[in-house]
C-alpha cells in the first residue's frame, strides 16, 4: 500500500527503529519511565496472541457475556426513505454496556489478568469506554479508576453513575478543555506513577505502540463478522462502509478486514462541530483548519494545533468524537487514499438521530449518528443496486440528556 503523503509535513520524523508504525505514523513518544511497561505489554500481548487458550476465553466471553455476534440488519425503511443504496446497519449498539468499546476493554482486561496486574486505570470521553472498563473490572474483581474530563462528566452524567454503580472510582479532570485529551494526560500521569502495579486500558486506537495495533485487533471482530454476514445476505461485499472517527477504534474495527478489498469504499466521519475554525470541531482531516502531523500522547499522527505546536481545543456535541488527534492507522489510510474522511456537523448528527429513530426504531449514540448522517447524504447518490454498510457503534441512551436540551420535538 502506498503511504505517499498528500499534505506537507512540517518536519518528517525519523525513520524509527520501533515497531508499530503505520507508514510514517505511530511509534512511541513517551517519557522514559513508561518504556519498560510498554515493552512488557508488547511482549505479553504477543504471547497472548499466540496462545489459543487466550483466544478461546476471549471468544467465549464475547459470545456469552458481551453478546456477539451482533446482527447485520437490513434497514428497509431507512433505505426506502433515502431512495438509494441498500443500507445495512452493523449493530454494535446491541452489545452489553451499549457500545463497541467492550470488545477492547474485555481483551485488555484478560491481558491484565494474565500479566498479574490487579489495578486497572482508564480514560473515558463519552463514558462508554469507562463503563466497559468498569464492567469488566467488576467481572474479574479488579480495582478500577477511570479518569474523565469534568466537562464530559457533566455531559454524560448517566455514565458517571453507571461506572460508580459498577464499583469504579471516577476521577474528574479539570485541566485544559476538561475532555478526553485531558483525561488521557491524567491517566498517563497515574500510569507513570504506578506503572509497576497498574495496567492502563486505553480506550481507542491511539497512544504508543502496541496500543493502536492491540485496540484494532480487539475490534477487528466487527469487520470479520460483517464480512461473513453481508456475504450471507447479499452474496457480495458492500460498496461502502461508513463509521464515525474520534480516536478511531470502531472505524478501524469496521474497516480492517476490508482494507485489501479495493472496491469497498471506507469512509470515516469526523465531528464537524459547529464550524470550521480551530476549536469549533474535531475534524483532524479537514483540508482547511484541520490537523497536521505531530506528536500527542505518545503517537505521531494528525493533530489539531496552532502555529506554535500547542494542541488546540475541540468541540463536538458528542463527547466521544471530541479529540485533537486521531489513531495513527487512520492517518496512514488517509494519506494513502485507501479511506476517505469527511465530517458531519452537530446539527446533522442530531438530525440523523431523529431520522434513524423514526425510520427504524433505533436511537443511536451521538457519535454513531455522525456515521448515520453521512449515510443520509451518501445513500441517495448511490444506485439502488449498491450496498452501504453503517457501523452503529453505540446506542443513544447515554445521550438522552443532551438530546433533550438540543432537540426540539414539538410539532414533529
Amino acid at each position, binding site marked *: 500500500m502506498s503511504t505517499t503523503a498528500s499534505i506537507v509535513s512540517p518536519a518528517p520524523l525519523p525513520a524509527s527503529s520501533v515497531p508499530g508504525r503505520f507508514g510514517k505514523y505511530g*511509534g512511541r*513518544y513517551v517519557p*522514559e519511565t513508561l*518504556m519498560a511497561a510498554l515493552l512488557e505489554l508488547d511482549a505479553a500481548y504477543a504471547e497472548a496472541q499466540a496462545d489459543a487458550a487466550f483466544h478461546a476465553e476471549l471468544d467465549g466471553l464475547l459470545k456469552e457475556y458481551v453478546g456477539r455476534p451482533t446482527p447485520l440488519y437490513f434497514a428497509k425503511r431507512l433505505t426506502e426513505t433515502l431512495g438509494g443504496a441498500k443500507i445495512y446497519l452493523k449493530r454494535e449498539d446491541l452489545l452489553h454496556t451499549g457500545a463497541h468499546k467492550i470488545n477492547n476493554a474485555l481483551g485488555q482486561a484478560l491481558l491484565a489478568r494474565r500479566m498479574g496486574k490487579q489495578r486497572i486505570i482508564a480514560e473515558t470521553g463519552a463514558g462508554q469506554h469507562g463503563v466497559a472498563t468498569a464492567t469488566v473490572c467488576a467481572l474479574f474483581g479488579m480495582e478500577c479508576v477511570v479518569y474523565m474530563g469534568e466537562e464530559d462528566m457533566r455531559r454524560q452524567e448517566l455514565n458517571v453513575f453507571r461506572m460508580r454503580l459498577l464499583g469504579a472510582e471516577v476521577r474528574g479532570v479539570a485541566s485544559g478543555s476538561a475532555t478526553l485529551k485531558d483525561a488521557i494526560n491524567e491517566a498517563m500521569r497515574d500510569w507513570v506513577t504506578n506503572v509497576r502495579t497498574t495496567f492502563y486500558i486505553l480506550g481507542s486506537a491511539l497512544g504508543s505502540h502496541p496500543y493502536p495495533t492491540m485496540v484494532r485487533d480487539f475490534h477487528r471482530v466487527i469487520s470479520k463478522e460483517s464480512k461473513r454476514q453481508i456475504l450471507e445476505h447479499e452474496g457480495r461485499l458492500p460498496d461502502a462502509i461508513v463509521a464515525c472517527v474520534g480516536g478511531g477504534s470502531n472505524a478501524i474495527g469496521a474497516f480492517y478486514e476490508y482494507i485489501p478489498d479495493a472496491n469497498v469504499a471506507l469512509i470515516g466521519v469526523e465531528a464537524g462541530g459547529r464550524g470550521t475554525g480551530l476549536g469549533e470541531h474535531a475534524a483532524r482531516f479537514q483540508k482547511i483548519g484541520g490537523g497536521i*502531523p505531530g*506528536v500527542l500522547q*505518545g503517537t505521531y499522527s494528525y493533530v489539531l494545533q496552532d502555529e506554535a505546536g*500547542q494542541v488546540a481545543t475541540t468541540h463536538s456535541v458528542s463527547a466521544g468524537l471530541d479529540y485533537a488527534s486521531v489513531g495513527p492507522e487512520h492517518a496512514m489510510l488517509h494519506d494513502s487514499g485507501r479511506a476517505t474522511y469527511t465530517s458531519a456537523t452537530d446539527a446533522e448528527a442530531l438530525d440523523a438521530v431523529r431520522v434513524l429513530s423514526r425510520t427504524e426504531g433505533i436511537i443511536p449514540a451521538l457519535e454513531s449518528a455522525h456515521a448515520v448522517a453521512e449515510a443520509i447524504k451518501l445513500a441517495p447518490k448511490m444506485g439502488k443496486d449498491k450496498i452501504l454498510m453503517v457501523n452503529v457503534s453505540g446506542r443513544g441512551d447515554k445521550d438522552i440528556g443532551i438530546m433533550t436540551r438540543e432537540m426540539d420535538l414539538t410539532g414533529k
Partner: protein
Amino acid sequence: MIEFKKKPGLVIYLTAGDPDLATTLDMALAAIDNGADVIELGVPFSDPLADGPVIQRASERALAKGTKLTDVLVICKQLRAARPQTGIILFSYLNPVVRFGMEKFAHAAKDAGADGVLLTDMIVEEAAEYLKVMHEVGLAPVFLAAPTSPDERLKAIAENSQGFVYAISRLGTTGTRTELEADAEAVVRRLKQFTTLPIALGFGVSTPEHVKTVGGFADAAVVGSAIVGLVEKTDAADAAKAVGEFVKSLKGAEIGA
C-alpha cells in the same frame, strides 16, 4: 558549557514565560549568580503529561501570556550573551519542536547559544533523525533515564546522551517531595556502569537536604518544581531575588556538607 565544577552541581529548571519572559531571564541570571551550573529553559506545552500540577500550572500561565518556542530561543540568546560560561539546556515536549521543524530548531537553538536539548517524550529508539541533527549542529542531546529502565536501555541512553544524563529519581511526574526514594540511588549506580558522563538527578529534588543527599551519589541535582512553585507564590518584581536566595540555600547545603 555544561560543567559541574564543584559537586554536587546544580541544574535549575524554569518554565519560560512564567510569570513573563523578562522575569524568566532575570531569574535565570539570579540562579547562575548564586551557583547554578546549568539552566534548563522549559518550553511551555499545552499537554505536559510528564509534569505534576506545579509545572502544569506554570505552563498554562506561560501559554496564556502567548509564550512560544521562538520566544524561548530569544531568552536563550540573551542569557548566553550575559553569561557566556553557563550551561543552557532547552527543555521541551516534542510537538512544538516538530511543528517548528527539527532541523530548523537545531540550528536556531545553536544560534541562540544553547549547549543542549532535552525532549521529554523522545526515547532513544525514535531518535535517529534527532541525533543526526544534534550532532550536525553540535548540540548535546540529553536523554532521561528512569528507575524502571532495564540495564540495556540505560546503556543506550548513556551512550546517546552528551553533556550529562538526566536520571529520574522515582516513578511519577515532576513535583516536590518531602523525601527522596530509594529508587534514586539505584538508577544512578546502574547508569555509572555505562558512562563517565556526569549524572544529574531530578524529579522531587526540592530542598537543600535533598541536594546534599544527591551529592552523595550523583554529580548534580536538578531542581524544578520547587523553583517554579516559588515563582508561583512570589510577585514578578521579587521573583529573581527569591530565586537567587533559594538557589543560594541549595548551594549552601553543599558548602556545609
